[in-house]
C-alpha cells in the first residue's frame, strides 16, 4: 500500500509535468515557429499528429508485452494493464488519424486518400477495436483474458506494418524520421522532441490511473464475493 502511494505521487508529477510540457510545446508549435515554405501553416498539425501516432504505436507494443506476460504468468494485473494500454493507445491513434486526415485535406486536398499509411493505421485501429469487441463478447474472466491476449499477439503484426507501410508500398506520406536522422530544422526539433515526451508522459499517467482503477474495482468485486 505504501509503495502504491509513492507511485501515485510520482505518476501525478509525471502527469502534471506532461501537461505543462504539452502546453509549452503547443505554444511552440502554433505561435513560436513561423510558417513553412511549401506547406504554410498546415504543417503545424505535424507536431500533434506525429507524437500521438508514435506514442500509440509504443503503447500497442506495451499491450503486446502485457499480453505475453499474462499468458506466462496468468495474473490479473497483466490483463488489466494490457487492456489499459490498448484503451489509451486506441484513443491516441484515433486522435492521430483525425489530425492526419485534417492535414491531408490541406496538403492533398482530400480528407481520406487510401494512402498506404492511412490504410495501415486504419486497419490497426480495427484490430484494437476488434480486441475490445472480443473482450466484450466473453463473460468468463480467464477465457476473456486468454483469448484477448492471444489476439493481441496476432494483431500486433499491424503495428510494424503501420510503421513500415511507407516503405513497403509507394506512399505520399512524408517520412520525417530516417535511419540517418531527422528531416527537420533544428528549431522544429526543439519543439517536436519534447512534444513526444509530453505525450508519452500523458499516456503513461492515463494508463497507470486506468489500470489502478480497474485493479481496485477487481479487488472490490472479489471482496464482495
Amino acid at each position: 500500500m505504501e509503495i502504491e502511494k509513492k507511485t501515485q505521487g510520482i505518476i501525478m508529477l509525471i502527469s502534471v509535468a506532461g501537461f505543462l510540457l504539452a502546453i509549452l510545446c503547443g505554444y511552440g508549435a502554433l505561435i513560436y515557429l513561423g510558417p513553412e515554405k511549401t506547406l504554410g501553416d498546415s504543417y503545424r498539425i505535424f507536431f500533434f499528429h506525429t507524437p500521438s501516432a508514435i506514442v500509440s504505436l509504443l503503447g500497442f507494443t506495451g499491450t503486446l508485452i502485457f499480453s505475453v506476460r499474462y499468458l506466462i504468468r496468468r495474473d490479473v494485473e497483466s490483463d488489466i494493464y494490457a487492456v489499459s494500454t490498448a484503451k489509451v493507445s486506441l484513443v491516441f491513434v484515433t486522435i492521430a488519424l483525425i489530425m492526419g486526415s485534417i492535414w491531408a485535406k490541406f496538403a492533398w486536398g482530400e480528407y481520406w486518400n487510401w494512402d498506404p499509411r492511412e490504410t495501415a493505421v486504419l486497419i490497426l485501429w480495427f484490430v484494437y477495436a476488434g480486441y475490445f469487441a472480443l473482450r466484450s463478447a466473453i463473460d468468463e474472466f480467464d477465457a476473456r483474458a486468454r483469448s484477448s491476449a492471444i489476439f493481441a499477439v496476432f494483431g500486433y503484426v499491424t503495428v510494424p506494418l503501420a510503421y513500415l507501410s511507407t516503405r513497403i508500398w509507394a506512399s505520399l506520406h512524408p517520412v520525417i524520421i530516417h535511419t540517418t536522422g531527422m528531416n527537420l530544422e533544428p528549431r522544429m526539433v526543439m519543439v517536436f522532441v519534447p512534444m513526444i515526451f509530453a505525450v508519452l508522459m500523458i499516456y503513461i499517467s492515463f494508463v497507470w490511473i486506468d489500470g489502478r482503477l480497474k485493479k481496485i474495482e477487481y479487488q472490490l468485486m472479489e471482496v464482495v464475493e
Partner: protein
Amino acid sequence: MKAIEISNLVKRYGNFTALRDVSLEVNIGDSWAILGPNGAGKTTLIRIISGQAKPTGGEVKVFGVSSNEFTEEIKRRIGILSHNHLLYEDLTAWENLIFYGRLYGVEGIEDVAEDMLRKMGLIGRADDPVRTFSRGMKQKLAIARALIHSPDLVILDEPTSGLDVRSRKDLADMVSSLKRDGKTVLFTTHNLEEVSEFCSYVAILHRGRLLGTRRVGGEPLEDYYLRLVEDASTH
C-alpha cells in the same frame, strides 16, 4: 509411486471456484468413486487429471508426473470415458477406433480394434456410421475407444447416465474385469448405490471441496455422506 497424487488443487473459472483445496491420493490398482451432486466439481477434477484443463493452483501428479509437465507419455496411460462419448458420429465404428488408436500409437491397431469390437459385440456393425447406433451401442463403442490403448488408469465420468439395465450390467462387468487386470479406476457418480457396486473406495466432493474419503463397507454410505454434508454446512 501412486497412480494419482492431488495436493491442494484449486481451479477457478473467473470468479467461480470449481475446486478448492482438494487433496487426494490414489494407489495403483485401486478403484475410487468420486461421489457428489451435479455441480460439485467432479467433471472439473476429471478434466484436470486427464490433462484437458490446467489447475489454477496446487498440483496434480499422475504416475509421478506433474500436470504442469504433462507429457504425451502420461496421456497414453490414461483412458477416459466421458459422459460425452467423444465419437465422430459420421465416421463408422471401425474408423473411430482406428483414428484414436493411431493417435495413441497403438501397435497392430487393426487387430486390436477388431478384437475390441468383437468383445463389445459390435463387430456386425463395424462399418456403420455411429450416428445410426443406439445409445447403448454408442456407450459400448465409447468404452472400446477409451480402452483401445489398454491404459493403466481408466477414468469413467458418469458412465451410467442414460444407460438401460442391460448396458449397465455390461459396464459393471467391464469395470470388474479392469480391476482384475490391476488397472486403476476412477469413477464419478451422483448415485450412492453405484459406489459399492463399482468401487472399493469413495471420495465425497461437495461444492468444490473434498469432504472425506474412506473404504467402502462398514458404516452405511448414506449416513456417512449426510453426516459430512451436514458438518460442512454448519461450519
